């Protein structure tokens, strides 16, 4: 963990040439202020706006008739919302856990003085470059039992091979996990690889002399030191999980049925295709509160710790 370097502070202004000094002193804040203003208006302002909308009778466009809590009470009676929330829990936790596990495993494997490391790294990394608008169809085909993996394996002679999760309401959410992991695990791998490369070689030597097998060495010495990498990976992955929209739309369109609905797709569909913007705003508000519940303590602890 890094320390905040002691900061450089401007010397306080003198009465003479006060204008110039004031400018010099304020310059950093001036430079920061456009970004701050943008974020205050376009993030926090919009959050407040959305929060407000969730209490109105907005349908196709924002409207300002006050409705109180009725959007929320409706929201909680909609079964698809329950599905969406529980799907996010399943998807989010599996996605984050698998990405981390796989990313870590790949990083460790790739760290063993591998010959074509650069090439393999690029192969693992490239899916991050593609959006699901691009790869969605390929994945859909590949997972489709009729023409994809199942069909191919069967054509090789293993007639009883079955892989039809994407068509199965109970399993479809896991295909979303598979594709999402495909897209980001390489990126996580890169983060862990960077973490591994930052570990003091002498510590590894010490552990070898202490007689740690490679397994013990990684489990006891290396992985515990990757905490910062885990943290960064968590931020990126959580952010992806929450925003997964393209992925679901491209792969299952929320189906079969509503089996793969996620809060993001739910919110979109209520706001834009069902013309129930009030409920959409209510779901967005709930979503934001959930995000805040996870991210604010995290951000807080990360920023605190470095003091």
């Amino acid at each position, binding site marked *: 963990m890094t320390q905040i370097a002691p900061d450089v*502070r401007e010397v306080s202004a003198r009465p003479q040439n006060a204008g110039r000094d004031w400018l010099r002193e304020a310059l950093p804040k001036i430079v920061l202020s456009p970004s701050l203003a943008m974020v205050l208006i376009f993030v926090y302002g919009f959050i407040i706006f959305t929060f407000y909308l969730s209490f109105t009778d907005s349908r196709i466009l924002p409207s300002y008739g006050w409705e109180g809590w009725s959007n929320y009470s409706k929201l909680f009676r909609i079964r698809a919302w329950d599905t969406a929330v529980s799907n996010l829990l399943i998807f989010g936790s599996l996605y984050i856990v698998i990405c981390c596990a796989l990313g870590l495993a790949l990083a460790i494997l790739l760290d063993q003085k591998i010959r074509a490391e650069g090439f393999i790294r690029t192969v693992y990394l490239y899916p991050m470059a*593609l959006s699901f608008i*691009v790869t969605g*169809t390929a994945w859909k085909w590949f997972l489709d039992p009729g023409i994809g993996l199942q069909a191919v394996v069967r054509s090789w002679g293993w007639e009883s091979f079955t892989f039809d999760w994407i068509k199965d309401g109970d399993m479809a959410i896991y295909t979303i996990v598979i594709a999402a992991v495909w897209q980001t695990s390489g990126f996580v791998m890169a*983060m862990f690889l960077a973490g591994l490369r*930052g570990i003091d070689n002498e510590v590894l030597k010490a552990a070898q002399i202490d007689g740690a097998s490679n397994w013990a060495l990684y489990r006891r010495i290396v992985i515990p030191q990757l905490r910062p990498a885990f943290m960064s990976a968590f931020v990126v992955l959580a952010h992806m999980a929450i925003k997964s929209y393209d992925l679901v739309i491209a792969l299952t369109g929320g189906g079969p049925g509503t089996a793969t609905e996620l809060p993001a797709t739910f919110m979109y569909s209520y706001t834009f295709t069902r013309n129930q913007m009030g409920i959409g*705003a209510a779901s967005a508000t709930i979503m934001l509160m959930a995000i805040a519940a996870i991210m604010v303590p995290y951000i807080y602890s990360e920023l605190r710790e470095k003091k």
Partner: protein
Amino acid sequence: MSSNATATVVRTGAGSRFVIYTLLILFCLYYLLPLYVMVVNSLKPLSEIQAGGMMSLPEEWTVAPWASAWSTAQIGVEATGLKPFFWNSIVMVVPAVAISTVLGALNGYVLTKWRFRGDTIIFGLLLFGCFIPFQMVLIPMARMLGIVGLAGTVPGLIFVHLVYGIGFSTLYFRNYYQQFPTELVRAAMIDGAGFFTIFRRIMLPSSGPIAVVCVIWQFTNIWNDFLFGASFSDFDSQPMTVALNNLVQSSTGVKEYNVHFAGAIMAALPTLLVYIVAGRYFVRGLMAGSVKG
């Protein structure tokens, strides 16, 4: 912290090396499969695809789908292919990435080297902005753009990407600059350099690794964005993703999957290129800062 950019000193036996290589190659297959499906099918005539052999190599190789996707496929009323939209995307992505990177660098610089009361809170505010779902901001953002007269313009679109990209680029640069020796800044102050001179002459030239990470991140996100591109562009500024969507999602009529795949790969080429060219600086850049959080 002594950092060593080379592979681990942990030693592995010949047997386990075989296992390692096997695993690595198997995972290469996992990652390459969708690309394989796309490439193979983009080089087949449509009839072969309809005949059902999506996993097999083409019996008859053809580049016609590529030519069609590039210049003759039906995107809207005109059969223009993706060609004109490619340029639209470039015009939008390049400034958006450049500005958000520079702004992120400036913010990171202020937040680490010119600290003031409350700076941590400001950073926290910026960071939380990364997590806002984009669907939520569509309507209010449209209103705002309308008010300032940027609706349906390229600068408007750039602005939107800037707003929602700033959090991550600030995060990257802040974490990087945190490890940048403050003594250098102090030395430059004593040498008489001012705020911007220090930034331009001292910080920026050393920011290569993290700039690569930031540019890759922003470039992929902005290039691949569909929602903002569709909502905030005009008839003459629709980006590549919207065109690709129009190509792939056409509601009725024959679906020319081979053309779709060719178009999809084409739309992904710039980001792929960025990854392949800059990929080897990527881990280095991550090492240089962003990971150590």
